[in-house]
């Protein structure tokens, strides 16, 4: 579904990604792990069209995304929940969600989209007239995921959804993602919380210093000594 081949990306003179190759199949949940500064956000931004890659190919459902403007990529069915959520703080929950259905692809499914989002996050329905600025971190994350869902995506990408969220809410968000996946949406997840990510995902890649350092089935990676040492550590939370 999503195929990335030999991707190079840079900001000005600073090379961030080198020769990244990975894929996400339909119906899969794939995680991307790695230390801070490895380039995970850059990778997602490149796929979403916010950053033009220097080299390599990004193909989504057979189509080359390379030159498309970001809003057209959303139109193709590929949505990103960006790091830090990036909501429209001065607008209400309902308005943020409604804007998610802005693209032509999503407009016919707007009503169904609202049902899906409020069904997943009932809390949001009660707060639909509340300004997003005044919500807690966890609630804002729900709005962010909901807004991306409103675009009616076939592949949902998330950049560190658990950042700054209480553990109980993280579990809840992961559960929601599982449910979204069961409904047929593929998920590509960049996560700092390795335990949670590998608990959810089918497969995972590891990105270190701009290169793919490893990949495999989630269960295998959980047992991998390098991964355990680097990312889980002695203080890893046991579920």
């Amino acid at each position: 579904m999503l195929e990335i081949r030999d991707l190079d990306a840079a900001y000005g003179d600073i090379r961030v990604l080198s020769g990244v190759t990975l894929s996400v199949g339909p119906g899969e949940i794939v995680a991307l792990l790695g230390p801070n500064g490895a380039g995970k956000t850059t990778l997602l931004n490149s796929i979403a069209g916010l950053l033009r890659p220097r080299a390599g190919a990004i193909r989504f459902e057979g189509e080359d995304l390379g030159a498309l403007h970001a809003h057209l990529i959303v139109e193709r069915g590929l949505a990103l929940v960006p790091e830090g959520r990036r909501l429209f703080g001065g607008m209400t929950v309902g308005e943020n969600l409604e804007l998610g259905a802005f693209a032509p692809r999503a407009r016919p499914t707007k009503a169904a989209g609202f049902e899906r989002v409020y069904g997943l996050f009932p809390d949001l329905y009660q707060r639909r007239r509340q300004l997003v600025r005044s919500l807690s971190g966890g609630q804002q994350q729900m709005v962010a995921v909901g807004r991306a869902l409103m675009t009616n995506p076939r592949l949902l990408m998330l950049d560190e959804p658990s950042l700054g969220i209480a553990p109980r809410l993280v579990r809840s968000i992961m559960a929601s993602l599982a449910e979204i996946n069961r409904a047929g949406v593929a998920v590509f997840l960049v996560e700092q919380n390795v335990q949670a990510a590998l608990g959810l995902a089918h497969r995972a890649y590891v990105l270190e210093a701009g290169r793919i350092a490893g990949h495999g089935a989630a269960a295998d990676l959980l047992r991998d000594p390098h991964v355990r040492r680097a990312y889980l550590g002695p203080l890893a939370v046991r579920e």
Partner: protein
Amino acid sequence: MSILAQQLVLGLLIGGLYGLAAAGLSLVFGVLKVLNVAHGELIMLGGYAAFWTVALLGLDPFVSLLVVVPLSLLLGVGLYWGLFGFVVRADEETRIKNSLLIGFGLGLALHALAVLLWTADERSIVTPYGGSITLAGLSIPIVRLASLLIALALIGGLHLLLARWRWGKAIRATAEDWQAALLTGIDVRRAYLLAFAIGTGLAGAAGTLVSIGYSTSPSIGLEWTLKALIVVVLAGLGSMLGTFVGGLVLGVAEAASAAAFGGPYREVVGLVLFVVVLVVRPRGLFGR
């Protein structure tokens, strides 16, 4: 005492036009992060468009708005496609600097063009009706009152447009975070185009009202750009109604200072307020 009150009322009446003038600038700056310092020249062009519409088509001066505003919208589209659409390709810092410079060049060129086409003489649109109504011992010129009410209506309409219209919401979203807007599927360039066109339309409307109640000439551009800038800095970005109130405040402040220090110092108070707010509180009084 009632002389002062009379002056303040007149200040309030022109303050509405300051607010309208500022609204267009504020919208464009807030959404595109572009500082079009030729905004005053766009107001000037609106004034001339109104003048010639009335002179050639014999329309009622206020009805000429129905001609001038669409023309201004089109001009805005043209200016965006031909000029400012290129400025938005850079990052925010560069955008502001470039738009300042480009606006400057555009203003000069438009000024010279206006003199070339219509001479440097002042033009005013004379309405077939006039007079004033008396309220609480104060005399309120009808034409200027009508202009204030129209300006208020336009601002109200703009507010509704931004609040209810699909693209109005897209424009607000783009103003807050254009990358997030892209990720939501909004064609940000289209939002920019619409915002710029509407901003120019507002300038055209302001120009029309200015040439009805007061007068227009090629050199009013700089003066009105400064007025608009002062109001934007006073009121901050983000609220059209707040901008309108900022305009009223400026109008009244000018009237008060003219009463206190004499007519010629009317302009100075706005500029001084401007500099003070810039240094002390760059976000303005209402802005977030």
